[in-house]
């Protein structure tokens, strides 16, 4: 399968700030790429360059086989963009918003109207079609915004933080819509700060921080980078923890971490449920004081903390190193 998006060595500077410092990424046609990073990492800048809103200072980018700088108009005809803020005209009705965008994609009036009707129905907005968008809730505006970016049946869709600011219910609904689009074969580049969102929607992920790619791969590959499963247990009396750590140490693959304030012990293990059973066996009579025990696989939050912690270590002096090292232990959870 070919690549719908190819980015090589992308550089963008704003005055003295380097927003992108040589970003490379590819998105296979028909797949979903999650572009992750903290605020200010450069996610939106990547999207702006790929959607022709900004011109890069260095490197090269192709979308749908077209160079974003040389063939900007052809790129625009092939893509859809949903920005960070729902870009809908508040004074137009939902229908008028979609009809306008359809006309600007050079659809005939009849086509634009038909398409507007279809999309309103698909995004559960038919009932609100004749109301000005001013009266819409945040979730409805986002849906209308995504509908607008789909008018021209884009081959590549850019979603820049599509669920930021939505309440949990609207977020779940939005996830369903995005998953449905992906199933339909649309190539999607999705930026997000929410790891859960990327975990759920994206086939592959690229993590950027300070304008550089710091990790890439599938969710499982990224999790494997941070380490495997951990055994965690919480007790009623923290003073028992050091003794327990001694008992469990032979089962751990690395040093157990004790969090006295949280009355918790956490240690990396391998072997799954057998290790868990063995651990409980060793306490025998002491089970009563265990409040909670279980195996936990790292989630993307762990990945992210680990990765950005590592980045800080590279970028700053040695003084920061112990702190950065301490981050992945996750004792604060």
């Amino acid at each position, binding site marked *: 399968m070919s690549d719908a998006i190819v980015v090589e060595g992308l550089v963008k500077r704003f005055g003295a700030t380097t927003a992108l410092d040589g970003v490379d990424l590819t998105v296979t046609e028909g797949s979903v790429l999650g572009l992750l990073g903290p605020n200010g990492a450069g996610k939106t800048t990547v999207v702006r360059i790929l*959607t022709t*809103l900004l011109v890069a200072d260095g490197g090269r980018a192709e979308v749908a086989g077209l160079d974003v700088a040389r063939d900007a108009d*052809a790129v625009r005809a092939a893509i859809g963009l949903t*920005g960070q803020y729902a870009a809908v*005209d*508040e004074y137009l009705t939902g229908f008028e918003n979609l009809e306008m965008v359809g*006309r*600007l994609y*050079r659809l005939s009036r009849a086509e634009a109207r038909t398409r507007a009707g279809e999309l309103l129905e698909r995004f559960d907005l038919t009932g609100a079609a004749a109301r000005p968008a001013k009266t819409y809730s945040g979730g409805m505006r986002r849906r209308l915004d995504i509908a607008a970016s789909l008018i021209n049946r884009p081959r590549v869709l850019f979603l820049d933080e599509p669920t930021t600011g939505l309440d949990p219910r609207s977020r779940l609904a939005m996830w369903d819509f995005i998953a449905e689009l992906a199933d339909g074969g649309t190539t999607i580049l999705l930026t997000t700060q929410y790891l859960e969102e990327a975990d759920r929607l994206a086939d592959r992920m690229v993590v950027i921080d300070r304008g550089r790619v710091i990790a890439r791969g599938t969710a499982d590959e990224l999790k494997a980078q941070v380490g495997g499963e951990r055994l965690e247990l919480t007790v009623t009396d923290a003073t028992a923890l050091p003794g327990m750590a001694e008992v469990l140490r032979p089962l751990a693959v690395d040093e157990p971490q004790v969090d006295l304030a949280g009355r918790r012990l956490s240690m990396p293990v391998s072997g799954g449920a057998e290790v868990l059973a063995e651990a409980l066996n060793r306490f025998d009579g002491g089970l009563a004081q265990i409040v909670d025990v279980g195996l936990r696989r790292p989630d993307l939050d762990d990945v992210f903390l680990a990765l950005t912690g590592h980045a800080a270590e590279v970028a700053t002096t040695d003084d920061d190193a112990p702190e950065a090292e301490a981050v992945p232990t996750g004792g604060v959870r």
Partner: protein
Amino acid sequence: MSSLGATLSDSVVITKRNLIKVKRVPDLIVFATLSPIMFVLLCRYVFGGAIDLPPGINYAEFLLPGILAQTVVFGSTVTGASIAEDLQKGLIDRFRSLPMSRAAVLIGRTVADAGLNVISITVMALTGLAVGWRINSSVLEAAGGFLLLLVFAYAISWLMALVGLLVRTPEVVNNASFMVIFPLTFASNAFVPLESFPSVLQTFAEWNPVSTVVQGARELFGNTVPGAPVPDAWPLQNPVLYTLLWTAIILVVFVPLSVRAYRRTASR
């Protein structure tokens, strides 16, 4: 579709979008017209008795072309604020991500704002007629007078479009444009005859295009008195020509500058 045809059809779509807002937010029209009405009444009855005019002309006839000019020039500042608002709300990003003409958003905006100006000019002319203003010329000349006002304001709209794209905050656009528009309209012959100005200011006012718009409109509406002194300055002797020259210069400079700024802008 040819690129000119595409620009035209995109501009029509955007103009329509902007006019729908006027329809949905009637307050816009109400306040765009109420304040000029209030202005006509205030000036007519507050300054009316105090300003010395040549015999044979009443203050209402002198004042109306001046107020019309001021109103349409102020009206064109809406362009800047509206574009800044579209930028803030991410709509300009959306338009720029579409395969549409790069000039259409600005053309559609300025044309819709000219439409708003047509409405406020009509309301003011009617108010003027009620307080003693008269058109003493042919229908064709009078139409020329209205057209002169609208064409000049249209050019100012393009200047304001650039301000909106560069300043990016609607409130700041308003304050910045008032700082320019107030001196331009008051340091002109719009409200008082120029003879009362100190000499430096008088020279400025004689070359101020707002003065020539006003003078041109007065002549076309027949609101001048034969034999009444018009300053010797060339602009005021040829007000229509001078105004059209300014209009052309503003458009030639600011249409390309604004379109260039639009191509490069992006909300932050």
